[in-house]
């Protein structure tokens, strides 16, 4: 695609074989293209992984994605140049964005949760829990300093704080084909913790 890029893989110590594969990839493509680092932590929080990842990143833009999704990264750069955005966020809810293999119940919960979020937080972005985003490096650093939540509430907080700080946010429709290898859980616990996170953001931002 003509862009210079490097891929940084952060392994959180989970026993799913990521590390061995990552090290092999590093041997194949060279350490300037693939950088692997290991952090051992008992609690996985995406925030910790980002902090470690950023220390090793050398580019001007940082794309953060879950390793089990598939997206066209170049689309994000096109969008960013279009409007010189500080952040480009993937959305499942607009354009030809969407999901695959979701039953009605899961779609309903997703849309319902997003509706409540829009009413309470008015975040200026249509999809807050998306895990595929492009950030300008300085923007990501600034946001990392300010955000305090954990898990996916952290994702939401990033966007809310970004809007407060006046950063511009562009959106790109994404096809969310999740959990190609494995089960996704959306039980009562997830819903409760989402609501707790939402109310915390509501009261503190």
């Amino acid at each position, binding site marked *: 695609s003509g862009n210079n890029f490097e891929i940084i893989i952060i392994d959180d110590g989970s026993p799913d074989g990521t590390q061995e594969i990552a090290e*092999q990839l590093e041997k194949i493509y060279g350490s300037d293209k693939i950088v692997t680092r290991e952090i051992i932590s008992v609690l996985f929080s995406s925030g910790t992984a980002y902090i470690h990842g950023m220390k090793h990143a050398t580019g001007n833009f940082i794309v953060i994605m879950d390793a089990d999704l598939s997206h066209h990264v170049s689309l994000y750069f096109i969008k960013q140049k279009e409007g010189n955005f500080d952040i480009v966020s993937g959305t499942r809810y607009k354009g030809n964005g969407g*999901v695959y*293999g979701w039953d009605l119940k899961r779609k309903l919960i997703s849309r319902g949760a997003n509706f409540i979020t829009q009413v309470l937080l008015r975040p200026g972005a249509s999809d807050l829990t998306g895990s595929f985003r492009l950030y300008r490096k300085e923007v990501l650093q600034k946001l990392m300093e300010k955000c305090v939540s954990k898990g996916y509430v952290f994702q939401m907080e990033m966007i809310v704080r970004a809007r407060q700080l006046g950063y511009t946010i562009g959106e790109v429709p994404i*096809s969310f084909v999740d959990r190609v290898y494995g089960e996704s859980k959306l039980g009562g616990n997830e819903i409760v913790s989402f609501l707790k996170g939402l109310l915390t953001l509501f009261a503190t931002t």
Partner: protein
Amino acid sequence: MTKLAQWLCGLALLGSAWAALALSPPGLRLPAPYRQALLPLPVYLLVAFGCYSLATVGYRLATFNDCEEAAAELQEHISAAREDLRRRGLRF
């Protein structure tokens, strides 16, 4: 100002306006029909908002895209990538 603070201010403003006009302390008396119409206004607004919410979520649920081609494309990409990596020496 946090979102919570914004909401509380907004509600306080509207609430006191409504209380002043509808519950009418003697100083601000409006003609009786107006007061009677204003009295149930909060409940009406709540119900209206409830209906709007249901309609919006229902519409968005119905128009939630399913990405069949993207899923198929992803599987192809995965197979191609596995093949390529296998040739370069990756052991799964």
